[in-house]
């Protein structure tokens, strides 16, 4: 019988025996350590993707995994994304727990059918007879001179696909907690890693098996005058902007890191909107139909009476993708400067 495995609550072996110690590590090390822990803890977990074995991934996220876990569980696939995701779905349907890597989110398009029409719709179409516990990891995001095809933030397409979950950690701790949650989730999860953060962001990472539940936002800092809602690299840019604007104006700025784009923590968003009455939503992605659009609409519908200003969005322009040449890249890429400008307007409103 074909059966998807139960997502067990089995604790992965922790890197730290007492499970309490928090060590500071880079974003990429947090992901790598977590992947290694789950590979060690459960031999149903397999990793598949382009260059994940011998090369250890083009960003070295799975460096030395091939040596430790062997080529049955660390699969250097042919260059074929539809095959990668389709195979992952099939593996999940027959007892494995696959983690598929798409080398860059920009190159996920050949797998769209498998993701949108198969993985995301399997449970619903089979009236709950089948489900699809796969995790898809993909680096995304810009600001790394990656040009049009190594910079994209196309997460909204997946948020627009019911049946999928989408998470975007902004800290090493969340990288671990969300990955553990994604692995234990019984539905397909797209786990997006901002490539600019891999080696530029450090932070404490709990060693245990504590998950960060999907659908729960993180309060980055508390404030009373305005709220910034964002995710991914933009959490760090927003923090810079908020610090600068607070110093300048004395305004108290709250920042919420969504972490999960699907499911969305509507409660955290609305509570903060009602408290501060001023909301700025920031995304690195193109503006129309973006996650920022969704958050803004939600606030408009559910917290209108509490608002002291129109909900604002800062987003990438409606231009196909990040250009290569530095002046063009800077013009395209959302950063602290642009967020600060919007925030000043919002605070002064």
């Amino acid at each position, binding site marked *: 019988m074909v059966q998807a495995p139960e997502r067990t609550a089995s604790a992965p072996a922790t890197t730290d025996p007492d499970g309490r110690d928090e060590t500071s590590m880079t974003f990429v090390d947090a992901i790598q350590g977590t992947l290694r822990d789950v590979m060690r803890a459960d031999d149903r977990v397999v990793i598949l993707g382009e260059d994940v074995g*011998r*090369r250890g991934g083009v960003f070295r996220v799975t460096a030395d995994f091939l040596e430790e876990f062997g080529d049955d569980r660390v699969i250097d696939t042919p260059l*074929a*994304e539809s095959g990668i995701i389709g195979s992952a779905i099939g593996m999940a349907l027959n007892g494995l727990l696959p983690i598929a890597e798409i080398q860059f989110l*920009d190159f996920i398009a050949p797998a769209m059918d498998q993701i949108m029409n198969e993985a995301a719709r399997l449970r619903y179409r089979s009236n709950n007879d089948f489900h699809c516990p796969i995790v898809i990891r993909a680096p995304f995001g810009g600001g790394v001179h990656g*040009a049009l095809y190594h910079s994209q933030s196309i997460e909204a397409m997946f948020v627009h696909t019911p049946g999928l979950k989408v998470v975007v950690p902004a800290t090493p701790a969340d990288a671990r907690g969300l990955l553990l949650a994604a692995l234990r989730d019984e539905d397909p999860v797209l786990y997006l890693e901002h490539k600019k953060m891999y080696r530029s962001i450090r932070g404490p990472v709990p060693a245990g098996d504590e998950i960060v539940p999907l659908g729960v936002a993180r309060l980055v800092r508390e404030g009373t005058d305005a709220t910034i809602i964002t995710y991914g690299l933009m959490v760090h840019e927003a923090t810079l902007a908020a610090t600068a604007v607070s110093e300048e104006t004395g305004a108290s700025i709250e920042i919420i890191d969504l972490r999960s784009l699907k499911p969305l923590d509507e409660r955290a968003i609305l509570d903060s909107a009602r408290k501060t009455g001023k909301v700025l939503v920031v995304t690195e992605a193109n503006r129309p139909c973006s996650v920022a659009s969704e958050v803004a609409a939600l606030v408009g519908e559910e917290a209108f009476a509490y608002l002291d200003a129109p909900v604002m969005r800062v987003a990438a322009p409606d231009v196909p993708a990040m250009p*290569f*040449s*530095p002046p063009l890249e800077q013009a395209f890429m959302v950063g602290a400067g642009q967020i600060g400008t919007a925030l000043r307007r919002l605070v002064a409103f």
Partner: protein
Amino acid sequence: MATEPIVAPDHAIQRAFQPGAALANGASDPDDLGPVPIADPLTATVAPASIGDAGLPAETLRQMYQALVRARSLDQRIWQMNRIGQAPFVVSGQGHEAAQIGAAFALDRERDVLVPYYRDLALCLAWGLTPADMMLSVLARAADPTSGGRQMPGHYGSSRLRIISGSSVVATQLPIATGVAYAAKLRGTGQVTIVTFGEGASSEGDFHEACNFAGIHRLPMIFFCENNQYAISVPQSLQLAIDHVADRAAGYGFPGVVVDGDDLLAVYHAVAAAVAQARKGDGPTLLEAKVYRYTPHSSDDDDRAYRDQDEVKARRARDPVRLFETRLRDLGLLDDEAIAAIQRDINREIDDATEAAEAAPLPDPATYDRHVYAGG
């Protein structure tokens, strides 16, 4: 016309591709290391090794040599610029040049259509892009003719030259080339379309879809696979379960041909035959040139993690540029003096190109949102 056979007879080829076998006919084998063995294909044919001048005029052979050296020198210069921090990203075609130049010369570059991929510096140079164009792209200047500095270097394109602009997405160019060839056939333009790609790209669904359509409609096109045995780190053995991408042609109803990509003139004749077939209306060919990539995948890669450096050294020793140079020396078409003169001219051209690009302005940031739609 040449009186010498332009290619080795078949039986010679069979022997020539045995490991360690000497070339037949006492033909000048410029390569002490002997040919790289090519395993017997399942359905494809192996193109004959070239002999002597392969029936080509001295002037053409000299132009080919010049094109080779130009590509290699420019490629090396760009790579060096990256290593000293002057070029943020580069992708190299070193090792692929003979295959690319052989192919370029077999087509009508005034009329035919090229659908290249990122390794095709030599091919695109031979097709009409200049070192100055390339440097503008490497330094992401506003005047970069292929993208105005918007794309990474290596993403060639020019409507004027009939080089179709490409993305970084592997294999997407293949169905596009099929459409270009269909249009050429329907409109009766007489154009042949050549589309290039790596062996890794042949794993994508787009490869299958393109070949299938091209076979059904007997399109005037050439699928030119530059098989360098690796897709980033993934070796051919994990990419396909057979020895030759060209063997797949049988499944689409057209011929597959395997050719030693270090043998410029063998590639030239193999592509010329495919062009002749396409122009006559007899449909596509899947040509696979066996090559080797000398550099890491790109400037962001480190190949020591996955490639035995002795293997790299051994393949570098069989350098197609040196092989061709030796061939022309043996034919009496080149000597030290001529070689030095050619190199000198090329170095000057590259110096000029670099200086011009360095002096050229970067794009105006205000233009970042132009050309999303017509009239913008």
